[in-house]
């Protein structure tokens, strides 16, 4: 079925405003200001570059930017580590066994965040399920974050916002070798080598990282998933390739992970299909017996668990190859840009009790655009084409389903072809004090039809210290049928997508920024409403199928946040952030598909930089989460293994991280860190395991940290 999104009131207003700014570019004589033409210049990597003059003529308009210093200070080993516990930004763990994680912006569901690599959208829901943990930070210049759908011209699918990883173009020969070890079998080695030559540079990166699965309770069932992750990459930078400035990178990713039973003997776990290796009596509100649990409906014990280690295992092997490149050339006042991306993603997985699943996905992306000076404004226009398909082989391991034991091909397949056109106008007013950016995209998907998304951004430089930014826009997302979103879909003969609609979001945001030499404060307010959020509906009792349908009502998140950084002493800076959220949705309409998010959070950080020392302490206080509403207790009450109801609300909790590094000489530094200093673990308060009213076991009761205190020690050679 073809589907076209009809204009809403906000849509109409934004389109009108966007067209007004775009059209103003053709009336040069009436526009008052000279343009800020984007020159080949060197820009500052520090905060708050989101408000620098000319910030709105970028294709991806960032609201936050994490530079190399901030990346290093966190001790993060991948994108998800980096994004955890930041004001307005966080990471949502979506499965306690497989540790599928997503980046949440403004506390909106993580799958709504669009990921770009050097401005190229080459990630999909398939690779996002586990792939975000595999995005290394080696060789990155910075990570730009755009909170809100209204912030990006070239991000095609952006409901909540965009995260763009920007590769560093080396300007000198150099290299780094970083080795670290820690608790729970953590071992990590990374290297980065850069070689420059006349008119270009080449980089080679590599990462080898392992971590054991961790059970902080004694169930024998992990809360933190073990993994063996290998990354390798090559970057090529040419300043003059036929007149074009070229930037390209190739990455290869190879990861094995297993959650549920402990250890890393994948073959042994796959072969272990009978008996009970677990102890369900451990932990808060544990079962009265080790090998069974209480059926909440009648208080009796369910049949003893007898599915072996495989029964609760999730084993996922991932291989991914991706290539992205951009080429830019300046012709006078006109800049031509070409971008291309290719990704091949392979997932071999064994979900004990659910299915064996082998997915293959390909993605292509092509883009061409031109930015030119039209009168006193800048006009950008371009075309892009995205291709994404998924093929799979699978077999249901659930003996209660009609598809049990039947090998199937392409049970969740889809193919999306989406050509798009976009236009953006950029104009300054009042002696460049006011910057305006308006854009309109039109995407035409072979399944969901045409979708128009307008976006408007205003940046007002009140003075050298004060600026404010307003953004309004719409985003969309094409829902997929990838089985990871709902394991049970493989148990149905077919998935009926005829009623599916593109998910759409309306976003309004305003931020006020004040910055002096020693103090920076940003206050922001955001409103996001998501319509047509896609849900899988179990209709096996009626039609025999799973239905992919839009939610009947909208999901709305409003939030305010305030972040301030103060250079208190020559060596010490202090950062304080507070954020408050309001969620509005009808829980029944979302059937517990949302993950719980906090009502408020506060973050505190102290950075001490003196001579060779760099010491950071970061603390996050997370407020209560309305578990009863997010997990829809009204329709599906959740129970502990002893048959008692799960709490309606999560407690407030602290997570404190500490890290110190010492630079011994020009080339060698060492570092030590303690994560989750006070050892706060959700599983010690409230198990991730939960039962429905009939005593069926699930593993997704999630609201807090899944690993306790860990130590890490490392050394880094830089030359």
């Amino acid at each position, binding site marked *: 079925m073809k589907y076209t999104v009809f204009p809403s009131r906000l849509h109409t207003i934004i389109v009108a405003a966007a067209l007004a700014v775009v059209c103003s570019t053709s009336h040069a004589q009436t526009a008052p200001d000279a343009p800020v033409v984007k020159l080949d210049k060197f820009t500052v990597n520090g905060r708050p570059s989101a408000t620098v003059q000319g910030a709105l003529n970028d294709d991806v308009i960032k609201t936050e930017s994490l530079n*190399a*210093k901030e990346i290093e200070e966190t001790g993060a080993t991948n994108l998800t580590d980096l994004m955890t516990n930041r004001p307005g930004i966080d990471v949502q763990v979506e499965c306690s066994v497989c540790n599928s994680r997503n980046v949440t912006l403004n506390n909106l569901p993580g799958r709504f965040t669009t990921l770009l690599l050097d401005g190229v959208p080459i990630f999909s829901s398939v690779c996002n399920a586990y792939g975000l943990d595999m995005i290394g930070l080696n060789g990155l210049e910075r990570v730009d974050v755009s909170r809100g759908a209204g912030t990006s011209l070239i991000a095609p699918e952006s409901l909540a916002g965009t995260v763009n990883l920007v590769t560093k173009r080396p*300007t000198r020969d150099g290299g780094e070798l970083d080795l670290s070890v820690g608790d729970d079998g953590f071992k990590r080695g990374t290297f980065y080598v850069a070689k420059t030559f006349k008119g270009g540079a080449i980089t080679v990166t590599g990462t080898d990282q392992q971590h054991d699965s961790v059970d902080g309770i004694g169930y024998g069932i992990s809360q933190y998933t073990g993994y063996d992750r290998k990354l390798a990459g090559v970057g090529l930078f040419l300043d003059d390739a036929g007149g074009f400035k070229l930037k390209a990178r190739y990455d290869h990713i190879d990861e094995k992970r297993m959650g549920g039973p402990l250890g890393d003997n994948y073959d042994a776990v796959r072969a272990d299909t009978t008996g009970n290796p677990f102890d369900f009596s451990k932990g808060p509100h544990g079962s009265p017996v080790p090998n069974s649990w209480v059926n909440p409906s009648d208080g009796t014990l369910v049949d003893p668990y007898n599915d072996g280690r495989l029964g609760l295992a999730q084993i996922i092997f991932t291989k991914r190859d991706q290539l992205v490149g951009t080429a830019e050339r300046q012709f006078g006042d006109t800049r031509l840009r070409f971008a291309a991306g290719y990704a091949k993603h392979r997932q071999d997985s064994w979900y004990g009790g659910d299915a064996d699943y082998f997915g293959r996905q390909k993605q292509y992306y092509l883009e061409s655009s031109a930015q030119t000076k039209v009168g006193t404004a800048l006009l950008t226009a371009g075309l892009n084409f995205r291709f994404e398909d998924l093929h799979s082989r699978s077999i249901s391991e659930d003996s209660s389903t009609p598809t049990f034991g039947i090998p199937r091909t392409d049970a969740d397949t889809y193919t999306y072809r989406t050509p798009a056109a976009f236009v953006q106008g950029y104009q300054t007013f009042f002696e460049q004090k006011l910057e305006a950016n308006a854009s309109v995209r039109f995407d035409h998907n072979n399944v969901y039809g045409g979708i128009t998304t307008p976006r408007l951004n205003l940046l007002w430089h009140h003075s*050298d210290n004060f600026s404010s930014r307003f953004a309004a826009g719409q985003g969309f997302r094409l829902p997929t049928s990838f089985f990871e979103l709902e394991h049970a879909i493989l148990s149905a003969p077919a998935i009926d997508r005829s009623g599916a609609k593109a998910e759409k979001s309306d976003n309004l945001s305003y931020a006020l920024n004040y*910055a002096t030499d020693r103090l920076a404060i940003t206050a922001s307010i955001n409103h996001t409403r998501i319509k047509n959020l896609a849900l899988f509906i179990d209709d096996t009792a009626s039609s025999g199928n799973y239905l992919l349908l839009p939610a009947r009502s909208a999901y709305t998140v409003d939030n305010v946040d305030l972040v301030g950084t103060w250079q208190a002493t*020559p060596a010490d800076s202090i950062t304080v952030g507070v954020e408050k959220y309001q969620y509005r949705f009808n829980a029944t309409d979302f059937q517990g598909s949302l993950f719980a998010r906090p009502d408020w959070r506060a973050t505190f950080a102290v950075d001490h930089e003196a*001579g060779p020392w760099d010491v950071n302490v970061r603390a996050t206080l997370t407020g209560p989460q309305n578990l009863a509403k997010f997990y829809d207790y009204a329709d599906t009450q959740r129970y502990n293994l002893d048959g008692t109801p799960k709490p309606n609300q999560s407690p407030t909790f602290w997570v404190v991280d500490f890290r110190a590094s010492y630079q011994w000489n020009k080339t060698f530094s060492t570092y030590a860190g303690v994560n989750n200093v006070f050892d706060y673990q959700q599983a010690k308060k409230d198990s991730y395991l939960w039962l429905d009213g009939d005593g069926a076991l699930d593993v997704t009761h999630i609201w807090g940290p899944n690993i306790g205190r860990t130590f890490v020690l490392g050394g880094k050679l830089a030359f």
Partner: protein
Amino acid sequence: MTRINTPRRRWWLLALLAAIVGGTLASARAADRATWDFTLPTIEGDRFVQVSKLPGPVLVNFWGRDCPPCVAELPLLQVFARANRGWTILLVCTDPPQDARVFLEKHNITLLALKSGASVEGLMRAAGNRSGGLPFTVVLRDGQVCKTHEGGLSEADLEALRLAYSSNEARP
């Protein structure tokens, strides 16, 4: 008709109020633009340096490791400092302090280097560099901007900055 003041509406009213207050405060501060002053810590983290309290001519250079013209002009600035003993040369580092410190050591640059502070772009903007491009150089006299230079410096550019200061000093 009774209007319901929902939390959502209150938030937007709060934002609007903040914008108005911010804009008003900003306008008030705009009147101070004649002087350009800042206080930044050294990259060693041992003291603050307030630029308006420094005696004599002051040259402030904003730079970054990954900016080739910035790197190329560092030795020139050091030579300039040796040749003009009465001048204070300040390097405002846009890189992480530890990285900047190691880089300067490797290149034997001994000029006084400062951390970038909370708003390096705001500082540059206040001195006339709206785009925030590097390198950027400012010559000061008694807290007043005498001359600025965007882009890489040559020896001739440095001499022009020196002369600009001298001619400014000669004015009544």
